[in-house]
């Protein structure tokens, strides 16, 4: 990000720009993560998730791992999120469907989460991780990442590819299995489709 920094602020001291950018991206991702929780419309939830993911990608940039940021954008935003939105479109009964949780559940969940967050923050503050001093002149080249993936991590890498293959076949099978149901189910499916169309129109 140094060159961007040089364009943006030219001679501002070295720490300020990363700090500003950190708060920017952290704010985006935290706020939209909160948005994921609070939003009641599932499509808006997905949009909030999009911003969280983009914010996290920005954070990866700040952490000097551009390749990971690109992977985050390609796979998460370009793949997973689109799949999710696809799923939303295929499954929501009305365009803006919402299901509300019970009030009691909300209270319990929020209380648990506040406790958990507090505990985590306490743990983080009290822990001493001894971070190294940053050497910002040094950058990790993508080459090293590739060598790590195809070197030390070759077996997990291949396993991941096998998992992906299995997932591809499995997901295709799961999504297709409906066709082997009896005709009644197919008719019901058609009925729901037409209902959906009526609702949308």
């Amino acid at each position, binding site marked *: 990000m*140094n*060159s*961007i920094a*040089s*364009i*943006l*602020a*030219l*001679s*501002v001291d070295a720490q*300020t720009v990363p700090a500003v950018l950190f708060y920017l991206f952290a704010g985006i991702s935290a706020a939209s993560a909160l948005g994921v929780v609070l939003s009641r*419309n599932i*499509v*808006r939830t997905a*949009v909030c998730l*999009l911003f969280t993911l*983009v914010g996290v*990608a920005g954070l990866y940039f700040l952490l000097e791992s*551009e*390749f990971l*940021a*690109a*992977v*985050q*954008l*390609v796979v998460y*935003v*370009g*793949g997973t*999120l*689109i*799949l999710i*939105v*696809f799923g939303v*479109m295929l499954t929501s009964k009305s*365009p*803006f469907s919402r299901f509300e949780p019970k009030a009691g559940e909300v209270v319990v969940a929020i209380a648990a989460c506040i406790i958990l967050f507090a505990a985590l923050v306490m743990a983080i503050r009290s822990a001493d991780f001894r971070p190294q001093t940053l050497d910002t002149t040094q*950058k*990790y*080249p*993508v080459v090293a990442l590739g060598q790590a993936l195809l070197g030390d991590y070759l077996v997990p890498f291949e396993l991941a590819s096998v998992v992906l293959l299995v997932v591809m076949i499995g997901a295709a099978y799961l999504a297709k299995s409906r066709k082997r149901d009896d005709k009644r189910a197919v008719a019901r499916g058609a009925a729901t489709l037409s209902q959906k*169309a009526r609702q*949308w*129109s």
Partner: protein
Amino acid sequence: MSILNALTPHPVLAAAADWQKTFFEIVSGRPPLVWEQVTASVALIAMVFVPSVLLLAMFSIWWERKVCAHMQSRPGPNRVGPIGLLQSLADGIKLILKEDLTPAAADRVLFRLAPYLSFAPVFAAFLALPFGPNLTFEPKLNAGVFWILAVLSVEVMGVILAGWSSNNKWAIYGAMREACQMVSYEIPLGLSIIIGVMAAGTLNLVELGHLQGGGIHTWIVFKNPFVFCAFFVYFIASLASNKRAPFDLPESESELVAGFHTEYSGMRFAFFFFAEYAAMFIVGSIQTALFLGGWNDPFGIIGHYYSQWIGDPAAHRNSLIVLNLIAIAIFITKALGIVFVQMWIRWTLPRPRIDQVLYVCVKVLIPAACVLLLGAALWELLVPSWHQAGLIDNPLPWFHYNPRSWSDWARGGATTSLVVQVILALIGVSIVSAIALWVGYAFITRRTVKQRLTDPDPIPEPA
């Protein structure tokens, strides 16, 4: 990498920064404060960068209309400005002045958000484009190629949201088509980019540019036969991922009215339009930077002089600035050339059905890309190239070796790849020159505007 480190600070950017500081000192009599600098930089981006992207997009829109008009034997826009050049500007003004309609049943927030979401990533992608050896906003972006791909993949979310939030049947069909088309075509797109990257050995766009500086035979598209084929796979996949014809299913007028932007009007519609044309330019730029030699001319002149001058950038500052300007012109010309081919194809081919589109991807392009990837990997493994000569990791032409000298290649143990590259370059040149000759023949025989190139004789102009 050592070369890249030597390239910073960029002479041009440093000059700009100096100029900014001096300007401040003249105006206010003191060095600028931090917030003033930030504001000035933001203003610079807003006033130079954004308009130049818009300008490119507007030029492309005008050009597309001209090209399509010529292909349909009509003059095209020719009233506003010389040869209708200002037509896009006029359209833009019209769109800005139009009422900004939001359908009553739409999800208002998402409806308003979608155009920005579609437009913003395109700008982000410009960040990494290597316009010239010193004219890149982020030259040290290690995953440059990948970064552009990643950012462009965000654009599709805007389209999907536009379709969804319109709450309109045509729009939602368009959005769903876009989603499945995009998700499918990103695979051959990525694979073919990987093939190119594998042949080059780097993901950094600036380094890619320097690697291809030794003349046309060092361009990556001619590196080996597999890359040559991957070039075409990339082109087809990029058409689809840009929803350009013949893969413009998300907005196919004859079936879906206007697809995902049926409900949009005014400036928001213009945003989608700009985003599409800017994205066309971006994919053309990736193709240029990754396959077609980036900012380099076919004879390696730019690379040669750059390697001579960069040794002492202070002494050659003006020469370097001129060189960078020539480079930027070459780069944009090449990218626009690709854009032209995209247009040409759009107005030539009919539109397939959505299942045919997906068939092409899943059963043709992906297997082809996989086979090419395998072939390219085997090629890298088996055919001796500079990498394996044990000299330098990824030697740059002119810096580490003379690309025109047979003995240098032989010393690097890369004579086989040199021969292959020269042969492939000859094939590529002959394809391009065949097209050029065809067009030239058309011009000579006066088949200019109103006739198809294949007509037997020029149709006489009506008096």
